[in-house]
């Protein structure tokens, strides 16, 4: 049995090694070993997006992703998005547009928005709604989030 194993991966640009149980999810490991709380389990079913983590440039649901699978991968969390004190344009846009209320779903929306704009720099409203339909905001900040995606798109285009 290999019920526990040592894995090595790049976490927000830093190489890390950690002992994990095969049953542990990525979000479990981020919070319990690295005190990173920005990806958080809520619905537990990959529907709300609160646990969004980017693994090898792909957004995934950290609560449904076995930590063992990030061995050798590049893992980015919301905590790694800002460069020092400088926020990512998506983060700035979310603040400017008031695109959150309680903030619990916000890291997931921010990361998904960044992914969306990486793939599609000027998405239409319909494309925004489809791309972000797997993220839920119970406070209903959706209109402001859509606006923030547009603002972030403009900011990125003009170089931040």
């Amino acid at each position: 049995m290999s019920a526990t194993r040592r894995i090595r991966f790049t976490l927000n640009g830093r190489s890390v090694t950690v002992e994990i149980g095969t049953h542990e999810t990525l979000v479990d490991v981020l919070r319990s070993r690295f005190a990173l709380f920005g990806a958080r389990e809520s619905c537990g079913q990959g529907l709300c997006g609160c646990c969004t983590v980017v693994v090898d440039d792909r957004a995934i649901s950290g609560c449904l992703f076995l930590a063992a699978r990030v061995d050798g991968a590049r893992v980015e969390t919301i905590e790694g998005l800002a460069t020092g004190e400088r926020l990512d344009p998506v983060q700035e846009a979310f603040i400017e547009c008031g695109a959150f209320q309680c903030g619990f779903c916000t890291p997931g929306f921010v990361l998904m928005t960044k992914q969306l704009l990486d793939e599609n720099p000027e998405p239409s409203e319909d494309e925004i709604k489809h791309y972000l339909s797997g993220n839920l905001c119970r406070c209903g900040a959706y209109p402001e989030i859509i606006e923030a995606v547009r603002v972030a798109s403009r900011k990125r285009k003009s170089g931040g």
Partner: protein
Amino acid sequence: MPFDLVEPSSLSEAIKLLDPDDPAVRPLAGGTALMLLMKSGFFRPKRLVSLCAAGDRLERIHVESDGGLRIGAMTRLASLERSIELRRNCPVIGHTLRTLSNVRVRNVATLGGHLAHADPHSDLPPVLIALDAELVLAGPRGERTVAVEGFATGLYETRCKGDELIVEAVIPPVGGKRAAYLKCTTRSADDWPALGVAVVWEDSGGMIKSPRIVLGAATETPTRLKVAEGAIAGRTLDDALLARVGAAAAEEADVVGDARGSVAYKKQLVKVFVGRALRAAQAHSGGTA
């Protein structure tokens, strides 16, 4: 709780690690569905056989010279969605994927996992059946080919044996066929569908040839509506025919009622959406909708 997680580097090795007599040993593809079963306690694995490194054949999208497609079972749904080969040769699949679950799931879930899970609400099985696709299964005694039609034998049950793996899906050339998939949700836009309807036919000078109409989600397994197919074969689509075929489809479909709709209501949806899917397919050739 911890379990044995193995990552064989070839298909044959993977097959050897399976155990048809032990339901606690299972292959692991994207894992999105399996993780849900594990988290809820329905499935407690003893050993998971990860197929991540089990060979290139599982991950490639190959276009045959006639335009047919062979898609490796470990191809991620997001890769299918973005595949230029698929967009060119079978656009109905990309269209279907757009509303299949969400981006993060599509980034992880695989075609093989999607089919092997055999959730009746899955979107791709009706489309693949309508396209007359087949699956290549590999097991200790070699490979065999089965049709996607009939592959799911019940709720979460398939023809794939405990020591077999789906290797690839084979889609015959789509060419100029008309194809569409429409789904209908009743509780929210991103809900599991109350029904999905896939239609494919060949247009022969305005006449419908070799139609396939497949109903998913509303039935226990995706089902061809053969009476409805018969009603449109050799005919030209018009409003009267659409009404007739809708009624025939609703009549023959063995619909299951649930929280997304009663049997009577879902029959009405079948009636409406079969017609709408045919219209959508008619509007586009080459399987766009």
